[in-house]
């Protein structure tokens, strides 16, 4: 027998109370851990998603820039359009290194599955240097470049003539398959800009323009020039760095609020642990006194109660981390259904150091929660214990 087994034995005495106390800590730690995992995952996901666009500025039709950014990143049907003239004006602005026009549409097939078509031209390749294509980029009418996931789900191979999903009567040839990018590109079907405009009956129209600047440090002056051009009143000029910061600020504010709630939950759990241990000390005062009589010092009794509290908190923290891990898919689905902008990457990212920090934090909280009951126990007089024994 050692100190750890001695303190662990006490758990058996009141299994229900121990279970409830552990559950309180577990729920608080699970909430805190999920929040921290979400913070890391979301921040990295949004940054990666915007980086994958390969542009500094997104030019979209008038409307909510965040909706437009979300549509450009994830694929959707657009409610309004830019004209090819807008693109030409943007391209001609000093400070613009590359501009790539895009037409995006997301028709739904009879089986309710949605397919995202993006019409582009070779200028997009300059913005996506990371793309690796098996086959060739679409050059002839009717050719398509399939994202890795789209090709896999349809069972397509390079050179195959295929019926285009959600476009009845239209066929195309798979000229290339994009190697996995781990972003939304994997699910898109890229085609020539003119083909997309024809299929969706929007000739000469665009949904967005991606712009790469010559010098990212001169964003402000280039933005002023873009907004001041003739077409400036018809376009929303969305600098992606600003977009990232704004999204992150909004999400950070919500996270801060939720973090405060989680911390309060942890403090309440700590108070619950302290209260449970005070009750335990009160019920066991005679036994603690007898321990003092047979040789336990005040420090020994303090250590015993402290260890019991720490063990309860450690068990709660480990359970909480496991609970958060097990429920991560459900948490991610729930977050995706509620967030105005969710990157395609995993929203909840697990880091071992975050798990260790949560468990360490819970044990620190346990140490604080143990102070009062452990001090009370250590102050018990052995003589009082014997008197108590004689009375009962």
């Amino acid at each position, binding site marked *: 027998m050692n100190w750890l087994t*001695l303190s662990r*034995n006490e758990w058996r005495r009141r299994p229900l109370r121990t279970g409830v106390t552990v559950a309180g800590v577990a729920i608080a730690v699970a909430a805190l851990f999920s929040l921290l995992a979400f913070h890391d995952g979301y921040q990295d996901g949004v940054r990666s998603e915007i980086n994958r666009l390969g542009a500094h500025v997104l030019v979209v039709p008038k409307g909510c820039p965040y909706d437009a950014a979300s549509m450009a990143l994830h694929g959707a049907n657009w409610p309004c359009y830019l004209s090819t003239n807008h693109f030409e004006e943007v391209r001609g602005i000093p400070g613009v290194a590359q501009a790539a026009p895009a037409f995006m549409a997301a028709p739904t097939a009879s089986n309710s599955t949605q397919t995202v078509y993006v019409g582009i031209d070779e200028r997009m390749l300059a913005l996506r240097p990371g793309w690796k294509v098996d086959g060739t980029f679409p050059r002839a009418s009717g050719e398509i470049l399939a994202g890795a996931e789209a090709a896999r789900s349809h069972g397509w191979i390079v050179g195959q003539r295929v019926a285009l999903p959600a476009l009845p009567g239209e066929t195309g040839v798979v000229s290339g398959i994009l190697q996995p990018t781990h972003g939304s590109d994997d699910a898109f079907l890229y085609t020539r800009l003119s083909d997309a405009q024809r299929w969706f009956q929007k000739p000469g129209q665009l949904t967005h323009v991606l712009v790469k600047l010559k010098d990212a440090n001169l964003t402000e002056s280039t933005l002023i020039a873009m907004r001041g051009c003739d077409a400036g009143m018809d376009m929303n000029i969305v600098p992606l760095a600003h977009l990232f910061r704004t999204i992150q600020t909004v999400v950070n504010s919500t996270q801060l609020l939720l973090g405060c709630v989680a911390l309060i939950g942890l403090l309440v759990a700590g108070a619950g642990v302290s209260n449970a241990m005070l009750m335990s000390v009160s019920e066991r005062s005679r*036994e603690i006194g007898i321990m003092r009589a047979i040789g*336990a010092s005040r420090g020994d009794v303090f250590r015993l109660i402290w260890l019991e509290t720490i063990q309860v908190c450690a068990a709660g923290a480990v359970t909480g981390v496991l609970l958060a891990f097990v429920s991560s898919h459900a948490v991610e689905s729930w977050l995706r259904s509620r967030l105005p902008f969710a990157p395609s990457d995993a929203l909840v990212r697990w880091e071992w150091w975050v798990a260790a920090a949560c468990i360490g934090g819970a044990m620190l909280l346990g140490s604080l929660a143990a102070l009062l009951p452990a001090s009370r126990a250590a102050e018990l007089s052995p*003589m009082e214990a014997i008197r108590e*024994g*004689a009375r009962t």
Partner: protein
Amino acid sequence: MSEREPVLSAAGLTKSYQRGRETVRALDAVSFEILRGEFVAITGPSGAGKTTLLNLIGCMDSPTSGTLRIGRREVHNLRERERTMLRREEIGFVFQHFGLMPTLSVAENVALPSLFARRNGSERIDELLERVGLAHRRTHRPHELSGGEMQRVAIARALVNQPQLLLADEPTGNLDSATGDSIIALFQQLNRDGLTIVVVTHNATMAAAAGRRIALADGRIVTAGAQQS
């Protein structure tokens, strides 16, 4: 230390406490000596001061006045930490209600004082359980034992740190007479093996089994008995 040297000596030991405005003298200038190897019963009616005396001898309380020695060491004015060390190293306690830890097994209960003393007493635990006849019960919990068995476990626990003095407060008070007799026999055996034992008891058989009797009444010694030769 020679065999006839006092293991315990009290001189003018007094303990007073306040009950409202009244000062109660639980012990009044009690003086006695107990020699190494003696088996002493402290008797007297309820309220005579027996348990108060046992608490003082066991270093669980300090006297209001007077001196108390265990061996050659004055213990009446020790600090709490020193009293704890003394209880741990020199004194074994047996309680009327056994005082076993319900969540621990028999062997773990016996081992508890050695844990507090930072000793590895595993061999000693086996030896003590053999000695009190409970080797077959080492993994049982207290609620699985009879009263007599629980008191035997408590005695084994009191002996694990090899104390020079065993103190027992009404050790048969919670047992039927047959079981009580077996505990008395165990105390006699331990005393024959050289252990000094002080028992507070109302049990006439226990008092008779002890080699010497110190009778208390109203906080004073009325009969000190002859020291055992």
